[in-house]
């Protein structure tokens, strides 16, 4: 198992290095230097060259990459010239809000999808199963913003129970307390993931129900409820660990769209605003952080799976 974990860790590090090279080169090719934005349209070429030289933007690309990575490893994510602030402090202001929104979305999605999938597998091909499958299919084909717009129309406009704008507070505790503002964004993210998770949970439960040990449990006269609770749930939930890891890029994307739709001042909205301002240090840093989040998330999911499933430990 140690060998497996080491190998898995090694691949992750290689992939992380590859990602950082790729994203850095991509953004460097699109946007070699912020000099023009800092100095304005009237700056001449000599001034720009001088600014580039004094801020390190005239060095060879490899050198710029290495110094950027050195900064990242020391917690320096770069400097946003258009916000006149370090990228790290921009992120620090908003990370709790995004973590709350996406974390709640993910946790609620798992809490709802697990029983839903098990119910569908246990009552396979019943009316309830078909209805839930169709609903999941519709949700699954729906862009995040479509679902968000429907929820806004129904719960904030037609029946004004909730707010169509997310909480604007800078204090995370106020944000958490403002459930009228946060319920719709969280629900949007949750429902999108529920559609995916419950589909997988249903089919993995159906797979498990076909196993011999379930037949044995039923043959020895165990009530169906206990067959499901003791023998099926834990086995059927295992693929969910991997699936959660794999769904992280979609979660990041969903977070971006949801924050935009509900005007929630988190990292996704920061990314969107930086896109409009062509604030490349922020774009670079957030894309990198997102990629690291995905890689680390998948690594954690794989490790969690080896811990949870003894069959993998032997491999």
């Amino acid at each position, binding site marked *: 198992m140690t060998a497996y974990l080491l190998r898995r860790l090694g691949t992750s590090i290689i992939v992380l290095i590859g990602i950082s090279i790729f994203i850095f080169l991509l953004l460097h090719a699109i946007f070699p230097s912020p000099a023009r934005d800092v100095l304005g349209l009237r700056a001449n070429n000599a001034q720009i060259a001088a600014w580039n030289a004094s801020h390190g933007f005239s060095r060879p690309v490899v050198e710029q990459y290495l110094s950027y990575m050195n900064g990242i490893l020391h917690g320096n994510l770069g400097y946003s010239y258009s916000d006149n602030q370090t990228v790290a402090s921009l992120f620090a202001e908003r990370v709790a809000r995004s973590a709350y929104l996406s974390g709640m979305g993910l946790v609620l999605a798992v809490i709802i999808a697990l029983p839903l999938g098990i119910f569908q597998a246990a009552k396979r091909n019943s009316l309830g199963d078909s209805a839930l499958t169709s609903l999941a299919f519709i949700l699954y084909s729906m862009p995040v913003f479509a679902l968000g717009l429907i929820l806004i*129309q129904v719960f904030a406009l037609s029946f004004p129970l909730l707010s169509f704008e997310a909480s604007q507070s800078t204090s995370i505790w106020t944000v958490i307390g403002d459930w009228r503002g946060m319920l719709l964004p969280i629900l949007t993210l949750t429902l999108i993931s529920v559609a995916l998770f419950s589909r997988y949970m249903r089919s993995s439960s159906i797979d498990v129900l076909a196993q011999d040990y379930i037949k044995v449990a039923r043959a020895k006269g165990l009530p169906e409820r206990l067959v499901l609770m003791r023998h099926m749930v834990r086995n059927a939930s295992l693929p969910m660990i991997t699936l959660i890891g794999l769904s992280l890029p979609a979660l990041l994307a969903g977070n971006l769209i949801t924050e935009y739709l509900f005007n929630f001042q988190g990292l996704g909205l920061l990314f969107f605003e930086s896109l409009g301002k062509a604030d490349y240090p922020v774009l670079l840093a957030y894309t990198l952080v997102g990629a690291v989040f995905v890689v680390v998330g998948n690594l954690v999911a794989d490790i969690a799976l080896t811990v949870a499933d003894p069959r993998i430990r032997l491999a």
Partner: protein
Amino acid sequence: MATGHASLPPLDVTRAPEGGDVGAVRSGWRLALREFSSNRLAVVGVGILVFFVIFCFLGPFFYHGNTLQANLISAHDPPGAGHPLGTDVNGIDILGQLMTGGQAALEIGFFAAFVAITIGALIGAVAGLIGGIVDTALMRVTDVFLSVPFLFVVLILAEKYGASVLSLSLVIGGFSWQVPARLIRGEVLTIRERDFVLAARTAGSGNWRLIRRHLLPNALGVMIVNVTFQVADAILAVAYVGFLGFGLHYPNIDWGDMLSSGTGYLTDGYWWLIWPVLTCIVLTVMALNFIGDALRDSMDVRLRRR
């Protein structure tokens, strides 16, 4: 299941099949088709897709809505005579815009899927066939691209190079090949061990010929299924990009753009700016997902009802 050799074309010696039995392949496809058309959802999906293709590409020949000229006197007209689905903030006809917007969405969807499957097939086939260090390297590259947040990179590139159907397709397709690459590599790994590949190799086929004539044609089922989902995902991606305002620019438009401008009037009750286009996006994507699911079921022999 033999359908008789009467239906086969006369044998052309120069193009004689090199591996597998042509008759068997043909009836295999026919079985898959029969399985596919017995799936009710799949037929509905094909119907919806055909409807949208006709609506978007042939519709403008029969319905001439004003999609180019601003006409502020008839801005925000509700659906009624002259404008079956109303007008937007500039007095542009929504129904006509739905058609042109759908053209862009479908074109980008199919073209991006084509780009993705082409890159994916090449990388997957080369990695699977050659193996060893090439395989490892290509798969790590694939891992890198899998972990790069798709929407972020596409948005950054669209912000810089967006604004045309071609560039958006290339950007979306260029970052969607990872899954097909892995799938096709997996297929190739099993196909390359089969006897007909050995026979072709013995007869002197090089790697490129093996990939082109033997491996990819036999992985075609997997590729077709994946392309369907790729089209759906690309249509969604372009809708996201358009919704965030980084899609096509006037006079070109796609469904995401329309929705983006309509969302601003959500609280004003101009429902015709939002719900028709939303329905178009969701129905098209859903239809493609139906078709993809049914294709997967019909291609997979194990799932087939006998």
